[in-house]
């Protein structure tokens, strides 16, 4: 999976409460008629605040976990 750049928004779940747009610490979201959209230029830092604030689960900010190059070479045995 490619590294997520911004959280994904499922507009069909959005109830237009505006919490994400109002409380985003980077003002990265704007509320439009169809729901929240990320502003361009992109200021989202993927802080995950909007996902935690969303009361309907419309915003999903997935994380992927991998080993860094240095840790790969460590032999546990």
């Amino acid at each position, binding site marked *: *999976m490619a*590294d*997520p*750049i911004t959280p994904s928004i499922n507009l069909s779940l959005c109830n237009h409460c505006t919490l994400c747009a109002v409380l985003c610490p980077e003002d990265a979201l704007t509320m439009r008629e169809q729901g929240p959209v990320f502003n361009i230029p992109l200021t989202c830092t*993927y802080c*995950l605040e909007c*996902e*935690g604030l969303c009361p309907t689960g419309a915003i*999903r*900010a*997935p*994380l*992927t*976990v*991998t*080993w*860094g190059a*240095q*840790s790969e070479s*460590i032999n*546990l045995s």
Partner: protein
Amino acid sequence: MENDVLSKIPMFSSLQPDTRLAISRCAFTRQLAPGYTLLIEGMPAEHGYFLISGEARALRMNPEGRVQVLARFSNGDPINLISLLSKDKANRATIETLSEVTVLVLSASDFHRLINRFPDFSALLLHQLATRLAKMTDLAADLSLYAVRARLARFLIELADLKPSPAGWTQDEIAAHIGTVRDVVGRLLRDFEAAGLIQRQGGQITLQNRDQLAAVAQEQDL
């Protein structure tokens, strides 16, 4: 149902041809959308399932909505085995799909008839039951003996060692797996980052030091 559908369930390859034929005559397949609730905890256990493709999870939820994930199922895993074999025949957990899923379905009556008539099917299920019991024992030990930090460190190591899940993991989903809440996962990830154990860039978490993380994973609950 076509007998070759059974070939998509690896553990069925050890069954005798007669057993496979008997299963194929009474089983059927179902396709399920992501996020579909296949079973609800406490409802009567009417069917058993074998996962042909996709991923699903078993969970329990408390009245406040806090979720504990009990198991994650992938190709070949049986679902609802314990419920069908238990005395009260009630679903032990809620089962949700995590992706598009195809399952092989057996009714409770066919399931019990197959167990009674085909010893190789019974033996196979016994092995699966033992595997599930071992995992539940590990989960009980994890939740009761280790600190949340340790459980998170262990979970991150597991995720990094596995093939990446296409959907990724939200903080809520991680919390549901390790028996805590979202805010605690967020705080611990920040702690791990400050300590140099992980590095975060966007939605990517890179584990930096296996030895140190492995040491944190052994921290016991005091």
